């Protein structure tokens, strides 16, 4: 079991958080939506598993590459 770190693909602000700790998520599932340059940027889990931690709050400003969440990868 390894933790997958979900990172911000662009700088922006956290517009919506669509998953919570302990949620089971699929790799393609959007867990956070950023707002950047007036566009919604869906951020996908990137790995299937259980969300172990959401590291940001709605409205928070994030930098490109910043860790947004951790997903405990299932299986493997």
């Amino acid at each position, binding site marked *: 079991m390894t933790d997958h770190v979900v990172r911000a*693909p*662009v700088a922006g602000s956290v517009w919506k958080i669509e998953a919570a700790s302990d949620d089971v998520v699929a790799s393609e599932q959007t867990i956070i939506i950023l707002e*950047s*340059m*007036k*566009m*919604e*940027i869906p951020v996908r889990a990137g790995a299937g598993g259980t969300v172990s931690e959401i590291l940001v709050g709605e409205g928070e400003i994030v930098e490109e590459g910043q860790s947004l969440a951790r997903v405990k990868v299932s299986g493997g």
Partner: protein
Amino acid sequence: MSWRKQVEEIERKRARAQQLGGEDAVKRQHDKGRLTVRERIDALLDQGSFQEIGAGAGAAERDPSGALTGFTPANFVLGFGKIDGRPCIVGGEDFTSKGGSPNEAGLRKSIYTEELACQYRVPLVRLHEGGGGSVAGTGSRTVGNPVFTPPRFRSVARALATVPVASAALGPVAGMPAARLVASHFTVMTRETAQVMVAGPAVVERALNRTHRKEELGGAEMHTRNGVVDNLAEDEADALDQIRRFLSYLPQNIWEPAPVLPADDDPDRREEKLLSLVPESRRQGYDMRALIDLVVDRGTFFEMTAGYGRGQITGLARLNGQPVGVFANDCMVYAGAMTAAGSQKVRRFVSMCETFHLPVVALVDEPGFMIGLEAERAGTIRYGVEAALAVADCTVPWASVIVRKSFGVAALAHYGPGAFVLAWPSAEIGAVPAEGGVAVAFGREIAAADDPEARRVALEAAMASQQSSVPRAESFSVHELIDPRETRPALCRWVERVQPLLRALTRGERERPPV
């Protein structure tokens, strides 16, 4: 009398040249997971097509009777070959001999590479691995080049201006080989085994008292994001595949047309998916690469420089068999805004299309230059305007399809002179996007309103409707407002219409369309 003895010597030298740096050095090369330069050349070219130039060049050792006692081959391998039946020049350093740092004969052959490509007017492929010159020199007794030697980069520049140049970094590449690597229209490096740097760890430590591993100074992760190298390859086979693929779209030289292949895809194909690809909500993005794949000949899009200036997408593709340059925006990266990096990527890409007379298809979703403190610090406007100026100077045919946004000065970089302009119903065209424009022009009015938020929303909606492509098409401000499904048929017909212009360009007639 027979020349048997001399012929035997020729054969011994040739056989020795095949052995490169010798059995042990070749084994060490293989143990590092890398091929030798001869194996690379064989893997790159059509089977059996390599015609070596200067196989017998090297340093001979002889006994007092003049008999050959030893031979060190030139550590740069050079020759003609064919890729998909089309001639090219290929050359590369032999890392198994002096780590690719040129010996005397190796240097002569290396320098000759670009000359040969220019003279025969064929594409040049360089397979780089080596550290360039050494203070130990080449072993020659003279020091320095003759003062009348042409500048080293003269032939490099001439090659870039006349024939396609594609290079791979397939091991540690520093100094002159690193400079030649990037003096290319297309560069690729292997993920694990290649490093590219101006100077390696020992030089850096001596000058800066900093210790870095070569992987850290010149790894693929960094160089595929800073524009030094266009594409990442998983391994050497992948790197050579990408070079073959790149060359498949390009003409042999600037005097010949790009290779039009018999089309195996219907030019009138209308993809239903295009009708709903762009979301109605202007806040929501879509996958531009999916759009490109639906429009161009199936499976022909070859993206270049994807990791650098990511808001702009550049690559080669075919439309009804005709090679074209594709330039698009990725709205999922800062809305597709033109950054300093994106601008430099576009300028370089467009200038390659111009050099080889590849028509450019722009799929426009440009919100403008990137804004904000970081963007200003990066000098965005300087690089952005250089990109716009390069496009304004183009003589190649352009077609621009406004998919969504087309705003500001940055939008100018998406329309070459005489561009054939199509707009989708989702297109929005203007000086500035509605939101920013309203914030500037109506700031006071919004602040004074009873319900500022409602006023802002109403003003933005009104402004957005004025920027719609519908009135623009009615005013003949674009050539045609089209059903997104008509994009491929329209572009394929355009490609047919521009053929006379493409022929004129290959003849060297560079008349610009009337302004």
